[in-house]
């Protein structure tokens, strides 16, 4: 088991966002998390990445208890989150943002390779290398955020709504990239509203509802589940 979150409870002030959920990710898997707005998907991601602490429960990554570690410490262990709403550094150029992805890395040569890989995936970024990221369009920023996450060479890459705000063609591309990265050996946990795509492409999935896991299974199983189809796929 690469990642294991047990009985996690997360509060925002008086509001309890996660009511003791358990999520597991096996090395090499693509796991997706689906659910309506406010179900707690982002909260799960935040708790996993260490941006927010848990009120109860634990997170075990790569056989090590990381519950008490800060986000930056977890990143060093290979647990990387590409946050919802992109979180690019608005005052830095595209290149500098990518640099930030490699902040903890020292392997110069491999970093160069990864640049090429990211620019290969997103040629638009290459065109805009010197643009200050804050002035880029929503979609461009999303590409940058994913590219930057890849620069960290994660063991487990967590993506929070990577397709949000992207044009249809790009969404397709993003999912292709996810598949590709996964084939290259990175484990992936993805949150998506785009449930159909997400379920098609993932090995397993969890369905969240108001801070609780209500269903779990393989992607294909859930795709066939009538209640899931009704609630999340818009097919009656």
């Amino acid at each position, binding site marked *: 088991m690469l990642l294991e979150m047990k009985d996690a409870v997360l509060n925002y002030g008086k509001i309890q966002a996660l009511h003791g959920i358990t999520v597991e990710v096996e090395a090499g898997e693509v796991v997706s998390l689906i659910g*309506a*707005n406010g179900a707690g998907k982002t909260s799960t991601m935040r708790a996993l990445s260490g941006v927010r602490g848990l009120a109860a429960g634990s997170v075990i990554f790569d056989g090590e208890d990381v519950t008490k570690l800060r986000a930056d410490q977890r990143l060093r262990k290979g647990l990387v989150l590409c946050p919802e709403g992109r979180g690019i550094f608005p005052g830095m150029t595209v290149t500098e943002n990518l640099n930030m992805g490699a902040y903890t890395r020292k392997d110069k040569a491999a970093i160069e390779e990864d640049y090429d890989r990211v620019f290969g995936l997103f040629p638009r970024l290459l065109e805009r290398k010197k643009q200050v990221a804050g002035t880029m369009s*929503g979609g*461009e920023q999303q590409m940058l955020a994913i590219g930057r996450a890849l620069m960290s060479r994660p063991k487990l890459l967590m993506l929070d709504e990577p397709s949000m705000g992207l044009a*249809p063609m790009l969404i397709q591309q993003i999912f292709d990239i996810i598949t590709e990265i996964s084939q290259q050996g990175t484990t992936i946990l993805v949150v998506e509203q*785009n449930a159909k795509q997400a379920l098609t492409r993932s090995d397993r999935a969890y369905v969240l509802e108001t801070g609780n896991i209500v269903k779990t299974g393989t992607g294909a199983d859930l795709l066939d589940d009538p209640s899931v189809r009704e609630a999340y*796929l818009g097919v009656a």
Partner: protein
Amino acid sequence: MSEPTHGSTVEQEEVVLKDTSDHDEIAIETTGPDGSVLLEVDHVTLRFGGVVALNDVNFQIRRGEILGLIGPNGAGKTTCFNAMTGVYTPTEGKIRFKGTEIAGTKPHKINQLGIARTFQNIRLFPEMSAMENVMVGCDARHKTSVPGALFRIYRQRPKEEELPDNGIRRAFAKVFGISRHTLEERAGRRRSMELLRFVGIADRAHELARNLPYGYQRRLEIARALATEPELICLDEPAAGFNPAEKEDLMGLIRRIRDLGHTVLVIEHDMKLVLGVTDRIVVLEFGQKIAEGTPDEVARNPKVIAAYLGEPDDAA
């Protein structure tokens, strides 16, 4: 969960929670969907240093329609919005709203002219309750300023239904009238509640905006924009982050907004929503308009397919 919020700028106890199934009260006066031009983007070019975000873009919005604005990421859609709402001034070209040139006008003036918008990255007033957020929108149409709020001298003869129930106060109000401030506050509260119900989030009216779920926040933005009684309401990716079921709801909401008499301009990447709800679509790419027409026409347009839609069976 939704604890009463004392001492807030909205006193909630006076809110009338009657159910208005028909939404007449929030309708605004417009001339209706007569198809006349409401807003005209006239050969607009907008540059940021070297980047040409808009290049000689030219289109019109007609009264009463739902117009979609689509295009690949970075095509210039949001920029176009920003130019229309006074955030940016076009480098060249004109934008006319109801015949008046509005480029270079301050954002709050543009709002008073009758254009409201939502933001691609939600920008509510996070520490104010949902209700208060909408009240700020309502205030755009109110007149009370500092002296009015301080001294409350400006009095109006109230309509029968505005009179207080209490006998003495009633008599007082009949003789001296009620200050415009008080009347506006009451009207604002009533209207805000109706709008929250209209967008479907009245149950959390007194919660801080920052604590609302994402979807609620999006809807709250719409309610707040509607509160300013715009003739034209511009929605920037309102369905971002919605699941299909929620998108379905949103489509209904957009149609109902139009039915109230507002003209709607919507930027959206979700083709199902765009094709399903709009009357006409304008397509941008690299800052240029590459197509314009009914949803059917646009969806079949090879240029659009190549630039934007990709293979017909899209991701949604």
